[in-house]
């Protein structure tokens, strides 16, 4: 009996899409206006889905306080109102595309939720 629970969060951050390994011209061709050296920002919407059986004592898939706290600490605090390229260490060497951001968030959350022993 698998139930999927999704929680939606929001954060705002600045970034610039730029690959040091490419020439200035290639960067402009690949990333277009996202390559603007001064950066730009987005209001990101993050949907986190956890899956699992329903715990009969709580009727829940996952402790929501734990999920909210983990997302707050692992994602919102480091990312919200930050410049992703400059303020988040993992994006010093990696382009902060939405794809890379998703993978980064997935890894951060999975590790913490698994370590807690109380997650899904």
């Amino acid at each position, binding site marked *: *009996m*698998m*139930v*999927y*629970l*999704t*929680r*939606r*969060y929001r954060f705002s951050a600045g970034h610039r899409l730029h690959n040091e390994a490419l020439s200035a011209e290639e960067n402009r061709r690949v990333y277009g206006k996202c390559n603007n050296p001064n950066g730009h920002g987005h209001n990101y919407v993050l949907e986190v889905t956890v899956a699992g059986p*329903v715990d009969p*004592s*709580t*009727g*829940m*898939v996952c*402790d*929501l*306080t734990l999920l909210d706290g983990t997302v707050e600490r692992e994602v919102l605090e480091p990312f919200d109102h930050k410049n992703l390229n400059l303020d988040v260490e993992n994006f010093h060497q990696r382009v902060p595309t939405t794809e890379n951001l998703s993978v980064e968030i997935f890894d951060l959350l999975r590790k913490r939720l698994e370590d807690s022993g109380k997650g899904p």
Partner: protein
Amino acid sequence: MERPELFYAGAAMIYLTRRVEFSASHYYHNPQWTAVENQRVFGNCDNPHGHGHNYVLEVTVAGSINPATGMLGDSKELKARLEQEVLQVLDHKSLNHEVAAFAAKIPTSENIAMEIWKLLASKLTFGSLHQIRLYETPDLFVDYFGE
């Protein structure tokens, strides 16, 4: 001249989703726990006077296209089934007190979604039930696929 085929028909799988809303009240409480434990786990959802939500329910039915109509089935029928089997049971009710399934089960979104599946799955007049998505708020929802 041969009559052109009017609709895509055959084995292709189509998913039809119907959205309805209902409003209900609930509270979370496990009678086997102390008041302190209930408060710790359920926080302000443990208030025995209850609180309410405007739930949004999305029901997805899967099946193949009927070549005579170009449709999976009559969506009015689905609406009527939802009305009769689900909304009449849950809408404007106190889930803990008025819905038998929640006399001994906490009416969380997870349990409500599974209960809706149970109420509806055998009552459809076309297709098969594929997904129940239940929004408790725009920022919190559960999906259940019957397994």
